[in-house]
């Protein structure tokens, strides 16, 4: 319960915009990833980044 209260207290309008922009960026990235012919390269870079 206190976690929800903390969330409610800390969440601002700017955070909503923040989430929307990041979601749009991620969606564009996913779409690009889906469309690009070099997606295997992206997978390799992703693995490297995680390492």
């Amino acid at each position, binding site marked *: 319960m206190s976690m929800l209260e903390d969330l409610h*207290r*800390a969440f601002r309008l700017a955070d909503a915009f923040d*989430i929307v922009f*990041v*979601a749009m960026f991620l969606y564009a990235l996913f779409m690009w990833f889906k469309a690009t012919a070099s997606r295997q390269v992206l997978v390799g870079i992703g693995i490297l*980044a995680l390492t």
Partner: protein
Amino acid sequence: MIARTFDMYMTAALFQAALAITAIALIVVFQEDLRRAFSRIALLGKLPRLGSAGQTSLDCDVLVETAFELAQKKVGALIVIRGDEPLERHIRGGSLIDARISKALLDSVFDPHSMGHDGAVIIERDRIRHFAAHLPLSKNLKELGTRGTRHSAALGLSEVSDAMVIVVSEERGQVGLAWNGKIETVATATELKGRLGMERFTGPQGPQQRISLWHRLLRGNTGLKLASVTLACLAWFLISFEADTVQKTFVVPIEYRKLPENMFIEDAAPTEARITLSGFERAFNLLVPGTLKASLDLSNVEEGQQQIVVEESHIKLPQNLTLFRVLPRTLSFRVHRWVRSNVDVEARAEGRLPENLKLESISVSPSTVQILIWESQKANTKRVYTEPIDLSRITKTTDLKPKLVLPQHVRVESGRAPEVQVKVSVVPMSDSPP
């Protein structure tokens, strides 16, 4: 991330060093995608025309009719309908032309005996701009299937631009449509007309166009959209969300602003304050401490001792940070008003004259000067003095130019003390031995 989590220093350092190389490699590998992304950003200003793509004036009946007639005759054809993105860098060879679209012209261009029949026709608005053009070939064999080179060219251009390509197969006598990296066979003229109308030729006046932007945003790829929103929420929760508030203290300068010109703050006024701010850590991350200052508006200040309580309104704080404490809470300082005054000038003498001389007079010229003085001190200050004159060094009547010594509460308007002349007149002692 894993390397850092498990403190694998060497691996982390290796990847850090390779970061620049990776960045360059990324640019090289994805140069075409990046180029297209930047060119799309440049086209953002044309968003309201999306969907219409500048082709609203084109009557697609001619294209559809010609395509299906060519298919029936098993004559191959490639007809490119330009979207918003420029095609010049993808096209090789061919010839420029500027002609109205007509069935006769298209039949003639794609006639097997014509020189350019293997190339593509590029249509921009309602004109044919290019013919016999060579298009980039697709490498997507999965999408291409068993189709031939002409289809590969159609798909290739649709992968790197927003153009639509109508392709007629000479072997199968079928009409296909390539768009957005996909190619499919279109069975009937009505279907092709419908596809062209839906994707490209819907005019801005139609109701379909008015909703198309939202429609485009909301329809399709629901899974990916949900995944994006979920990931963004998760990232916000992990990176930005904090329940605990933090307090940090900063030493900030105090700025006394809009002080009237004839007013003066005594040097003892505080110049710095320690302020303690409260808020979430992320709010502090966005704060530039160098921009913090306490700014006091003294436009209505009166002469005399002042006491101002520093409040949140005196400090420009970023959103989500509150002022928790200020030290000193109350700023105490004295303000003086400068007023003009004429005071006497007096020469200050020290030491004794030689024994054989007698002081006749010490005269000062000018005898008065105009000064600026604190209003509170005006009544007590009737004269100002020169720097001390050493009488023991006087051997005869002498003219001197000593400086004026001004106390703290006095200054001269020009900033430079006026010159004064002092004449020390002496006479020999009458009883001195000859």
